């Protein structure tokens, strides 16, 4: 096809816009990565953006010398793994039950469920509820209230409905109960949808700082995101981390500053997401599509 002059300019313009957009998305990560590998005091002099001026591992060594960070990683990993597994099982079980035409009372159930999508109690009533349930400052506050999501249930519901009825009927003739049909036929057939939901939920768990901030107080339950939140927004806390490092690894800490420690901490928090990102990417587009059919 012959391109006109206007078309050529349009292509150039479009490519330029895309490159600018990508720059805005990638550059902040790059600057922070570079800073986290730079000597602390040297970084404060400014001008370290595209490549480290005085390369060092000290920031990372110092960050990982603090035992609190291991605890924070452990709490976060535990809630991510446990929370995701329970969420997927619980939500998909309910979705399967609702997807069966023979379920009695379905229309009432659906209205009952949909109401919760439009009305909510808000922060304080939720907080008071958690307090009376003993969930405050309890690890279970990360797991139990997040076990079910109406939105994810709707996605799974529309997916389960697309499974051919004849398949389920034939399993029934063979004498399989609903639970066996769910576990042996429906779940394996729904792997793409389940994987997408598991990944969204897992990333949500890993990235959440809201519930830690609102509903927990003890340091032993501090998640990695809340730890980072304190480092990022509270200068005294960052100073404290720096002083801690000076105690634990004095030689390394000399080459750091609160500013570069903060950057190293940011990268260390994001690294797990970046590692699983390629796997994520395979599933999430599919997940959004499944959701969009519903919408």
């Amino acid at each position, binding site marked *: 096809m012959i391109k006109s002059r206007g078309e050529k300019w349009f292509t150039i313009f479009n490519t330029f816009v895309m490159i600018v957009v990508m720059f805005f998305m990638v550059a902040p990560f790059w*600057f922070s990565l570079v800073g986290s590998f730079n000597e602390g005091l040297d970084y404060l002099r400014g001008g370290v953006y595209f490549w480290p001026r005085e390369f060092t591992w000290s920031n990372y060594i110092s960050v990982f010398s603090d035992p609190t960070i291991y605890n924070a990683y452990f709490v976060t990993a535990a809630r991510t793994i446990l929370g995701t597994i329970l969420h997927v099982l619980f939500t998909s079980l309910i979705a399967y039950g609702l997807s069966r035409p023979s379920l009695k009372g379905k229309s009432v159930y659906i209205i009952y469920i949909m109401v919760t999508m439009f009305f909510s109690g808000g922060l304080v009533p939720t907080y008071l509820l958690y307090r009376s349930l003993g969930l405050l400052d309890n690890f279970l506050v990360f797991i139990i209230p997040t076990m079910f999501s109406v939105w994810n249930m709707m996605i799974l519901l529309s997916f389960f409905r697309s499974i051919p009825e004849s398949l389920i009927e034939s399993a029934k003739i063979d004498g399989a109960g609903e639970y066996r049909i769910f576990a042996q036929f429906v779940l394996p057939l729904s792997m793409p949808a389940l994987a997408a939901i598991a990944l969204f939920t897992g990333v949500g768990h890993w990235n959440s700082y809201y519930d830690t901030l609102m509903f927990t107080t003890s340091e032993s339950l501090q998640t990695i995101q809340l730890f980072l939140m304190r480092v990022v927004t509270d200068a005294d806390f960052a100073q404290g981390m720096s002083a801690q490092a000076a105690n634990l690894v004095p030689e390394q800490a000399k080459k750091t500053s609160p500013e570069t420690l903060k950057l190293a901490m940011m990268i260390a928090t994001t690294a797990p997401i970046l590692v699983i990102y390629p796997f994520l990417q395979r599933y999430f587009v599919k997940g959004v599509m499944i959701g969009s059919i519903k919408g």
Partner: protein
Amino acid sequence: MNKIEHSSELLGKKVTSSRRIRLRAQFELQSMVVPGLIFLFVFAYIPMYGVLIAFKDYNMFLGITESPWAGLIHFKEFFTDPNFVSVVRNTLAINGLNLLIGFPAPIIFALLLNEITTSKFKRFVQTISYLPHFVSWVVFGGLIITILSPTNGILNFILVELGVLSEPVNFLGEADNFWLILVSGEVIKGLGWGAIIYIAAISGVDQDMYEAATIDGAGRVQKMWYVTLPSIMGTIVIMLIFAISAILNTGFEQILVLQNPLNLETSETIDTYVYKTGLQQMRYSYSTAVGVAKSIVAVLLLLLANYASKKITDKGLF
């Protein structure tokens, strides 16, 4: 005679046994669904009931039901609070800007992305653009703070080098900049992810229409404007409905990360205010009343948007 009786007896047995199987299946199905209903009762309906404390003087020892009624006193307190005007203004402005800029941005991005002819480059751009969505707001906020830092942020460095600024500025320390910074951050973070749904819609557009438009002599920009955009209008309207019904419900985490004492004047929104008065100062009834006031404003906005949409486009949400 005997034979017939015998066979009907058999049939009866069969009926009861198949009913028993059906009953068992029904019981199994109910046992899958009911735990979810109980879950929602506890974690969604009980807090809804808890909203009552907005109209009461909540006392921890008396509980929600036993606490004395207070009427609208907490609402009055909020409306006469010195923070009232700025908190409401900030909430409306931030959410309004988010809708105004954050809503069309992914659509434009999807349209432009669709015009990339090299599929490898296109996939590359897409991969990059989804990435910020998966990074937490703490990290993303940290990145924004780093870039805008008055001591070693790159933005100050560039502006000073170019002579635009004579000395570095603490961007996040000036209340005037907060809305712009926050909304730009949200747009960049959500751009690629928000575009997925439109990309999907665009891929479903009938290719014959493009050929017809080419024969009619339409250029690429014209095709984008006259073919692609009208074809995805349905998706756009649905997404707009979602966006409007979620209005005032966006942005607690991002605001709290970027907020600092210097920009509080423009960064304190209803959500952050509820958190501070409710959980930090433990004024439970008052902060619940503030939350209820927010919900009322949100409903009013929705009705207003619906009215405007009916006037302008003849189509309403309800």
